[in-house]
């Protein structure tokens, strides 16, 4: 990690954002009709309300790398002939500021899926072009459990880590890409000390708050790939899934859910093939011409949590496909979520 660190007065955040936006597209947590989302920052639009205080955006930052819907190819059919037109969008460089430590970790989880061979071209293109600037969580909430995955909200990671402390934004490049971006900001950033007392205090305070959170001691230890069949066959899935209404909220707000569907839309001028997020909670997720292997919500519900806590770790050296951002805890219509599942199925470790 680079030891160099910079800062800028929080009051001058606009200057920082404008300088960033001058070099590339910049995405910030911006309020839209009462909710905070990562949206493109427009220095000319004075109505945009940047919300650095919002802990989690509703849609996670994965949206920037794996958008909800994107074109794959278009086709023209004429008689017996088909023409394939590659109309995938190629992105230009962009930066995203305000990513929390949990979302930053989610990119590593998505990378293992999309950047493994054969590489997902669109995702790789966005990863290559995107600079992630994280922001430490000064006020974590009760729904947070990133600690269970070894994430330190006080050292958020990404290409550049940022903190808000003592009325300043602190800025520390971590990767070469982060260094390069920082160089372009020499005019707005001021040199600072990495072990500045105020910054150290802020980090300490974040860790102290996290230690007080109710899910601070959540353990996922019992979710081991070796216990795959045992966990799969647990009788608890039935009662846990009773509350599930089969919507896709948890999967769509989740920063690590990566399942997608490929669909065709007939525009009248041709066929647009696009891919979009899909949810294993949906009844038609695995529907085939000859039937559906998951006929009830119990099976669909189980699939989601098995994937996150058992299947994914089995394929990825024990890494869970969850980062503890707490979005599903806050958003589930029935308040059924991964923590309740982990505690019910995980057994003794959480008593």
């Amino acid at each position, binding site marked *: 990690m680079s030891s160099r660190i910079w800062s800028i007065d929080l009051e001058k955040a606009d200057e920082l954002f404008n300088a960033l936006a001058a070099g590339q597209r910049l995405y910030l947590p911006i309020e839209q009709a009462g909710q905070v989302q990562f949206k493109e920052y427009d220095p000319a639009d004075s109505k945009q309300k940047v919300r650095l205080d919002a802990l989690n955006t509703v849609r996670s930052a994965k949206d920037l790398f794996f958008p909800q819907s994107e074109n*794959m*190819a278009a*086709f023209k*059919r004429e008689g*017996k*002939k*088909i023409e*394939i037109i*590659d109309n995938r969008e*190629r992105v230009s460089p962009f930066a995203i500021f305000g990513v929390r430590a949990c979302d930053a970790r989610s990119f590593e989880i998505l990378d293992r*899926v*999309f950047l493994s061979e*054969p*590489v*997902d*071209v669109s995702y*790789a*293109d966005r990863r*290559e*072009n995107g600079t992630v600037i994280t922001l430490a969580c000064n006020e974590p909430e009760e729904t947070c459990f990133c600690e269970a995955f070894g994430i330190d909200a006080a050292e958020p990671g990404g290409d550049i880590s940022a903190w808000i402390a003592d009325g300043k934004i602190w800025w520390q490049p971590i990767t070469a890409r982060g260094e390069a971006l920082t160089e372009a900001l020499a005019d707005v950033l001021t040199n600072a000390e990495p072990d500045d007392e105020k910054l150290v205090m802020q980090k300490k305070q974040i860790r102290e708050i996290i230690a007080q959170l109710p899910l601070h001691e959540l353990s996922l230890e019992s979710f081991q*790939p070796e216990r*795959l*069949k045992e966990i*799969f*066959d647990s009788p608890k899935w039935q009662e846990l899934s009773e509350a599930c209404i089969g919507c896709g909220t948890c999967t769509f707000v989740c920063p690590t859910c*990566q*399942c*997608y*569907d*490929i669909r*065709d839309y*007939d525009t009248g001028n041709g*066929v647009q*093939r696009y*891919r979009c997020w*899909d949810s*294993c909670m949906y009844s038609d*997720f*695995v*529907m*085939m*011409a*000859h039937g559906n*292997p*998951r006929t009830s919500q119990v*099976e669909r519900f189980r*699939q989601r949590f*098995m*994937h996150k806590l*058992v*299947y*994914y770790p*089995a*394929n990825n050296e024990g890494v869970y496909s969850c980062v503890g951002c707490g979005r599903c805890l806050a958003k589930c219509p029935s308040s059924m979520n991964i923590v309740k599942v982990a505690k019910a199925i995980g057994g003794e470790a959480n008593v």
Partner: protein
Amino acid sequence: MCECSCGHNGHEHIHEHKDALMPVIGVVTSIRIDTPDVKTFRVTAPEGGICFDYVPGQCAMLSVPGVGEAMFSITSSPTNKDYMEFSIKKCGTLTDWLHEIEPEQQLTIRGPYGNGFPVEADLKGQNLLFIAGGIGLAPLRSVINYCLNNRDSYGSIDIVYGARSSSDLVHIEELKTVWPELKDTNVHLTIDRPEEGWDGHVGFVPSYVKELDFSLDKTVLLCGPPIMIKFTLASLQEIGFDKTQVFTTMELKMKCGVGKCGRCNIGSKYVCKDGPVFRCDELDELPDEY
């Protein structure tokens, strides 16, 4: 950073990667009616020849844009470099549409997907027993022809094939006239119910397998409807086969074909990437959700 040999690196490289999700054009050059609901489509690249290289047991995504896209096993042997064949049963939106088309129709095709049968590894030098039911012959036919084209690399070959009726037997000319004529190759046909003019065996595949009472020095390749696979496997075990001797090929809903869309998993394995070919003892370690 990158281990492939395309000669590019970094940013530029990403753009140069072949997109596994981007299809190419395939042309249907001829269509053979096999049974009342199965047709075999011969597909070539627009300039002729096969669309891509593959191994027996691998699959390809065929699509008619706007109609649908689905995974089909390639039924021709990769030893044939002139065309690819797909035996397709009429059973859904896309297949209904395919059954209406005429030669020269273009399709989109991407692949190959999946692991295929271990024809160059585990199967080499072995006596082989192929057991298929109905349209389940499609993926096995690729292996059968591959082995017959490399006849000296394999031991004896037995083929047990059953269908509902004699008119439902696909690839009938190969079954009746080509394969039985070859060296050390036996074909055992059966149909579910007695029928006028049928002097062959009548009965379900699992019981026929038991009746035939094969010697245990064989590696089995099994494909058919899930229920047939289940009972045939039981029959095989009854006559003394071990699950490690049996390979089967699975099918689940697939979309991407590259293990990323999250649809075709059985436990932690993706059928499109880790399968579709599994050794039967491997399936025991996976949850019963297929």
